[in-house]
């Protein structure tokens, strides 16, 4: 019992505060620590460096540095807050237009190279081996402190972007302002995109052979033009910022979800639908408000339509089919696939004559989203990502040329994927690993990508622990996780969910993934998570939920009935591997038998000891804070 209780006391009270503390590898912003900050990836969450750092309500891109000329500059203009990614850096760049000239810039060519490097990173799949925070310890040490400070400022909200930026800075090794580099990245991206796009519309054509060393002159020429555009961005954004709030207020209230017991609306939706769904025979009474369709019937139909569906982009179509077939699951994987499909769509998109890009593209995205919903109901994380994309589209300055706008959007989406999903996971891992001690027995349920990364990383660090993988029908995702863990040499115990109260005696920590965390602290996750958390709570074992902040949602939910997703009912009746056990085949047509395959459930917040996000480790009561800050950062600015 002692060994079990100890963990609770171990949880650092500092960390349990609403912790917007910096991810460990953001050590370099502190100038004093800049000299020898080692890769703090595995140190206990690096909270020696002022862990609690609640960002100001409207963070300016530059810190209040009295000595910095930049600061005066930026405070003079009202620059949209919360900028963290390239597109928004357009505005600081604009403000710095004249400033750049005064800074001696000896390293253009190098910078061009690094800019290229950075821009190629996110788009080139998600091979993060190059971006591992470990691989560039304390990078921009040699850069001016001003740069550091500005980097700190916008990194304060998203440590992920910091990493990316520092990655650029590494080959640099000389004095340069971040704004300049930013501009270069922009130019690079635009160049690359335009080179790819055949309908070569606007920007000065840069040949497809934009490679690292050779673009020196082109680069230099390109940067200023880009800046001109972006200065107007700042203006237009300022204008947009005025009317934004009330519009967003309206959006703020989550839209009522489609209730499938409302006959009129269901009929209407059916008329619009691309995917022809047949209703399940025996719908479960309790879940009439949720869509219950026959599974497996739509796939061939849709496949045959592949070449006839005009409005849907093939990339989206492909993703939709994969959702439908069920070979793409897991919140992050689904979200990334969807965003990449949107990128493809945007890449191939051209504004129809006499239409505004903002409106038309939003409409297009909307139609794609509704197609995806028909394939499988969206997860909350995907809803957040879609909201992000739409906000970005809506905020595109009208002055931007089409290809530039497209390039901005694509890079926006890229940085969302890297920062909010991939790097967020890395930060979560670095936090969570501090909670694993030698001799621990960690229990996990199903297969969560974040938890898997935590376990593997802890194993790599040489911690000695045992993993209990709890699995449940019908998906049996735990087996896949088990296979991967065993292949890596972790000691595992495998059992099914019914035996969880048997195995809980020996467990010291429970790590669970989540599909979403709702703002009343409810954890919305794979069905069975609630059971595991409940049993762990009954046995006084701490429950740690690992969830990226982009999956947080302001919705509240008390039970798993009102909002849920229903899976294929036939998966319930079929027991894999045991022929004699699938005895239900002959009576599945009976009126009296209903098969219910819930996909998610809601874990009450009192079972959750701690939620580990990319913002730090927080109690479930602090979820609304994260939701608020995240929205401030992304959707309102």
């Amino acid at each position, binding site marked *: 019992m002692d060994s079990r209780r100890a963990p609770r006391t171990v949880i650092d009270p500092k960390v349990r505060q609403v912790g917007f503390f910096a991810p460990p590898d953001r050590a370099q912003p502190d100038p004093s620590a800049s000299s020898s900050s080692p890769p703090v990836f595995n140190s206990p969450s690096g909270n020696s460096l002022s862990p609690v750092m609640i960002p100001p309500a409207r963070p300016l891109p530059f810190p209040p540095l009295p000595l910095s000329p930049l600061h005066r500059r930026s405070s003079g203009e009202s620059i949209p807050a919360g900028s963290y990614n390239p597109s928004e850096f357009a505005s600081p760049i604009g403000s710095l237009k004249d400033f750049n000239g005064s800074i001696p810039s000896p390293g253009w060519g190098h910078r061009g190279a690094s800019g290229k490097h950075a821009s190629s990173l996110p788009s080139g799949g998600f091979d993060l081996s190059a971006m591992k925070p470990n691989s560039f310890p304390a990078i921009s040490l040699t850069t001016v402190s001003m740069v550091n400070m500005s980097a700190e400022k916008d990194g304060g909200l998203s440590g992920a972007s910091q990493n990316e930026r520092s990655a650029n800075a590494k080959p640099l090794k000389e004095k340069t302002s971040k704004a300049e580099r930013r501009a270069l990245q922009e130019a690079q991206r635009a160049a690359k995109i335009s080179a790819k796009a055949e309908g070569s519309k606007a920007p000065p054509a840069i040949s497809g052979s934009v490679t690292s060393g050779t673009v020196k002159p082109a680069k230099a020429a390109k940067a200023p033009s880009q800046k001109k555009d972006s200065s107007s961005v700042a203006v237009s954004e300022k204008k947009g910022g005025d009317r934004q709030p009330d519009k967003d207020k309206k959006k703020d209230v989550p839209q009522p979800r489609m209730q499938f017991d409302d006959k009129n609306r269901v009929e209407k939706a059916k008329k619009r639908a691309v995917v022809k769904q047949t209703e399940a025979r025996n719908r479960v009474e309790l879940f009439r408000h949720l869509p219950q369709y026959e599974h497996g019937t739509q796939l061939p139909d849709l496949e045959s339509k592949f070449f006839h569906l005009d409005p849907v982009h093939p990339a989206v179509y492909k993703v939709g089919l994969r959702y439908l077939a069920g070979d793409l699951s897991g919140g992050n994987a689904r979200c990334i696939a969807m965003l990449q499909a949107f990128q493809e769509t945007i890449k191939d998109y051209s504004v129809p004559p006499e239409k505004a890009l903002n409106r038309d593209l939003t409409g297009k995205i909307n139609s794609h989203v509704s197609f995806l919903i028909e394939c499988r109901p969206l997860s909350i994380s995907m809803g957040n990502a879609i909201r992000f994309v739409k906000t970005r589209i809506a905020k595109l300055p009208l002055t931007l040329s089409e290809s530039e706008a497209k390039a901005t959007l694509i890079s926006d989406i890229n940085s969302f994927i890297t920062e909010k999903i991939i790097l967020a996971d890395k930060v979560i891992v670095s936090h969570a690993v501090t909670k694993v001690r030698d001799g621990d027995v960690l229990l996990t349920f199903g297969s969560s990508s974040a938890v898997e990364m935590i376990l593997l990383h802890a194993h790599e660090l040489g911690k000695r622990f045992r993993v209990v993988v709890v699995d449940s029908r019908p998906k049996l995702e735990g087996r896949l996780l088990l296979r991967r863990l065993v292949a890596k040499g972790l000691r595992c*115990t*495998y059992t099914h*969910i*019914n035996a969880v109260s048997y195995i809980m005696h020996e467990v010291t920590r429970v790590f669970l993934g989540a599909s979403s965390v709702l703002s009343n602290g409810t954890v919305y996750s794979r069905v*069975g998570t*609630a*059971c595991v958390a409940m049993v762990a709570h009954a046995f006084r074992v701490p429950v740690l939920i690992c969830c990226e902040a982009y999956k947080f949602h302001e919705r509240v939910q008390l039970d798993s009935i009102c909002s849920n997703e229903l899976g294929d009912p036939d998966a*319930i009746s079929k027991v894999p591997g045991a022929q004699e056990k699938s005895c239900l085949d002959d009576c599945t047509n009976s009126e009296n038998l209903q098969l*219910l395959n819930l996909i998610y459930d809601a874990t009450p917040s009192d079972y959750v000891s701690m939620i580990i996000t990319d913002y730090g480790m927080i109690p479930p009561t602090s979820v609304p804070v994260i939701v608020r800050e995240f929205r401030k950062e992304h959707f309102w600015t």
Partner: protein
Amino acid sequence: MPDMEIMINEFVAQLTKRKIEGSQATARLTAELLRTVVSQQRLPPTNQAMALIEAVRGVGERLISANPVELAVGNIVRRVLHIIREENFSVLTSDTGNLNLSAETDDEDTDEQDNCSVPSVAALAARNVLRAPSLHALLETMPNSAVACTEEKSNFFLKRIVMSYSFPAEKFARSRKLKLDVIEAVNELIDDIDTCHEQISEQAVEHIHQNKVILTLGRSRTVLEFFCAAKQKQRSFRVFVAEGAPRYQGHVLAKELVARGVQTTLITDSAVFSLVSRVNMVLVGAHAVMANGGIIAPIGLNMVALAARKYAVPFVVVAGIHKLCPLYPHDPEVSLNGMRSPSELLEFGKFSANMEFGMGSGAPLLHVVNPAFDYVPPELVNLLITDVGGHNPSYMYRLIADYYSADDFVLQRKSTS
């Protein structure tokens, strides 16, 4: 005798190999076997009851050690021992009655009053001495108002009983009588086991109201009969059946319920927590009921009970009285559990290909845990419905006093001493 040995060995083998499924079947077979043991046992002239008890206990020990997890075996052995003790006393009391009758005829001048009351008092006293105290027994002794003096009188009559053993003519008749009585009582016990389902399901209508929603996990015959009885009484209700991985007995139950026209929804075990909140009652079967009111139940029920407690849904257990075990559980998850084959969870043909057992430290990397039973502590159980009525778990000790003799709680006493 040899065929007796063969029967016992066969049964022991079946128990060891876990061939007999379900506590009811086990209980019935045990009772039948013990009945044969009793009938074939040759009784010595004196102290027949002890001889019978020793014989039954000897067989019982073997049966219990064959499958210590199947508590029904031990329960039945104890019940039979209890029957032998009871019958022995009824024989004894009738003996004393006869004795007194003859005494009455012989010695006319003895005090009339005394003689009349003494036999019954002696019998009751004997019962009181050897049977655990019960309210029933107390009430029986009340009208005699001789409770205070029963002790010495019973001693007196016991002496006379011992003296009466010397009559050789009576001996044969009495030994026959004891045996026959015991066999008859064991037959009654078997009948009780057979009819426990009906007894329990008679109470179904009292517990299932119209449109009730009930959740159950796995399959229990008692539960099935309970539902069927309610259905026959034209109650309409709805049942959520959790499938009970890894044995998926819930599928069987769902099929049977559907065949009988009950509205059934089959769910996965992981969805239990979500749906318990929409349910009026959780009704499950048990593997054994312990003396503290806790139950040993199919795996997964502890989770269900916790969820039911969370949502304040009554957790009701139906169990025949043969599942009532007079032992208090200590660490029941380990000591009273059985481990089933890992192949129910993982097909090793598929899986072992990329697992390396015994590399490095020598211990396998992967353990697969597949326990058969769960322990539900009494504080999570709201009601126990047995064939003698519904009871609070805290009342179990009382039922145990009625059905078992305190001397038999520990059967292995002899082998340890």
